[in-house]
């Protein structure tokens, strides 16, 4: 063996060991992130007889869905299931997402293609709204909602999410439209199109990727919201799933496997969105850090 080849083999070995180490670290972290999912899935699938905190990490004996059934339908006289609250979350999240996406699209259009004097001041003022701790507006919000009769209702929550969704939806759409060439708008203007016509026929047809990003973002944050939901809805019949799940998990009569099944049910819609539309989910996340 010449010096050359020995050196080559040596460096190969070095490379291989460091590669192995990299994969080992990456896999170890993957296991850390998946650990709660493992417990969540395994526990939900155990039969009531084999559920025990001391055998938390054991695999189930077979596929049992009793925990899911119990979490979904509840147990009459003992505790409420999550079915009603799951649907409440659907009725809340879908319209709120659609409305705030439309609103964000219009705002983004104006702030990118129809800048007016002061619009560069207005924009950061709008953006500040997405960082505030909502505790600082909860008290007057409760008072106002009671006054206009929206307190304790799903429409009230929709209204809240539309209003406090304005900053992020406007931000994402403004950045999205800013990247589209202004010549498109100028050309349409010369052709005599109005501000509405340009939006309707030029910008809107190009907006689908923007809508997907914004809608995923809003869907996820509205579905996952707890603070507004718990403050505004006291009645269990109206509560979204995050509040109901928290009540379920805080109740001493509910077995922990049922709590785990409930947690998975509550996480499922956003997880599915993540699994199937992960690419767009990422873009929304990046937009959340201001620079698109």
């Amino acid at each position, binding site marked *: 063996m010449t010096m050359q080849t020995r050196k080559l083999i040596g460096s190969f070995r070095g490379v291989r060991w460091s590669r192995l180490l*990299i*994969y080992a*670290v*990456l896999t170890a*972290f993957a296991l850390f*992130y998946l650990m*709660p999912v493992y417990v*969540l899935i395994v526990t939900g699938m155990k039969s009531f007889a084999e559920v025990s*905190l*001391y055998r*938390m*990490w054991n695999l189930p004996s077979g596929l049992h869905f009793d925990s899911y059934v119990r979490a979904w339908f509840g147990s009459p006289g003992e505790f409420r299931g999550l079915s009603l609250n799951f649907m409440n979350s659907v009725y809340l999240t879908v319209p709120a997402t659609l409305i705030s996406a439309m609103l964000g699209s*219009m*705002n983004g*259009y*104006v*702030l990118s293609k*129809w800048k*007016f004097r002061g*619009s560069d001041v*207005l924009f*950061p003022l*709008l953006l*500040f*709204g997405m*960082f*505030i*701790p909502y*505790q*600082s*507006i*909860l*008290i007057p919000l*409760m008072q106002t909602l009671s006054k206009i009769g929206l307190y304790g209702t799903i429409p009230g929550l929709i209204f809240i999410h539309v*209003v*406090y969704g*304005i900053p992020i939806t406007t931000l994402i759409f403004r950045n999205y439209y800013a990247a589209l060439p202004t010549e498109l708008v100028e050309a349409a203007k010369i052709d005599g199109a*109005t*501000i509405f016509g340009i939006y309707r026929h030029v910008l809107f047809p190009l907006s689908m990727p923007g809508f997907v990003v914004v809608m995923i973002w809003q869907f*996820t944050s509205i*579905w*996952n919201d*707890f*603070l507004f939901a*718990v403050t505004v809805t006291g009645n269990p019949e109206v509560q979204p799933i*995050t509040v109901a*799940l*928290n009540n379920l*998990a805080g109740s001493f009569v509910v077995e922990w496997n049922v709590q785990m099944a409930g*947690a998975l049910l*509550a*996480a499922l819609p956003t997880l599915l969105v*993540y699994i199937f539309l*992960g690419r767009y989910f*990422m873009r929304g*996340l*990046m937009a959340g*850090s*201001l*620079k698109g």
Partner: protein
Amino acid sequence: MRRLNWERVASVLLIAPSALAIAIFVYGFIGFTGFASLTKWDQLLPDFTLVGLHNYQKLFAHPRFQIDLRNTIVFTVLFLGSCLVIGFLLAVLLDQRIRGEGLFRSIYLFPMAISFIVTGVVWRWLLNPGIAGAGSTGVNLLFDKAGLGFLKWGWFTDPTVLYIHPESGVGQLLQRVGLGALANPNFGMSVGIISVVLAATWQMSGYTMALYLAGLRAIPDELREAARVDGATELKILRHVVLPLLKPITLSAIIILGHISLKIYDLVVAMTGPGPGFSTDVPAYFMWETTFEGNHFSRGASIATVLLLMVAVLIVPYLVYSTRTEAEL
């Protein structure tokens, strides 16, 4: 006089509803909360008698609030530290032309899609230490099985507060240099909060990874290649070429994670509540409880205002900076 272009008016009208909504529901409401924090409002019915900064004086003297502030600082430091370190490490490793990079990335990032409530419920059971005598559960049980039983502890049920004892060597040293006040439980750390940090890091470190990875990918290969030609080792390239270029990413991450950590509420509710001796209590939790369960509206409003000021100190310079640099582009 300049002729009014009707489309200019239309464009302002299009954005007016949103601008008005934000003016009322963000700025107006913040103003109202600030005002309420200066009043006597201490029951369901409003009482707008002004009392100046009295509520703030009482608040900062309140033992629970002092503990909350301590917890917020400890939580923020630990949470930011672990997210940045883990996020950076994973991003650098993933940037090494890894097979299955997409899969790893998806696994690291999926917790972001889940609510803090779900995270809290799951981690509460994972970190449940079990009952003494009856055996370990959760992660403690896993430690037992792996022969790492010495790592077992009470997690969020542990009420211990670590602090510099005034009688200790360090404590006396601090007293001698006039910093004796630091040798006090108020400047300590309740170990229970580590459990909440762990769950929050599980949820947010993948996001930090994604930020760093995007930053790494934006660095032109030529830069690294040039350093390599100059004979720099990979570690040196990381230290002297990559790290300085990632500073803006670190800043963004600190600001985003920092404002999340100051506001943290859901996770604490679902996971631990205030904990033994308020060991896992945070200002947001105190605010909600005192306002909506105790009807101490003016106290709640003062906590909310303190929270807002803390977040504003972090966010406002960042907002001004980002929108300014954007305008220059």
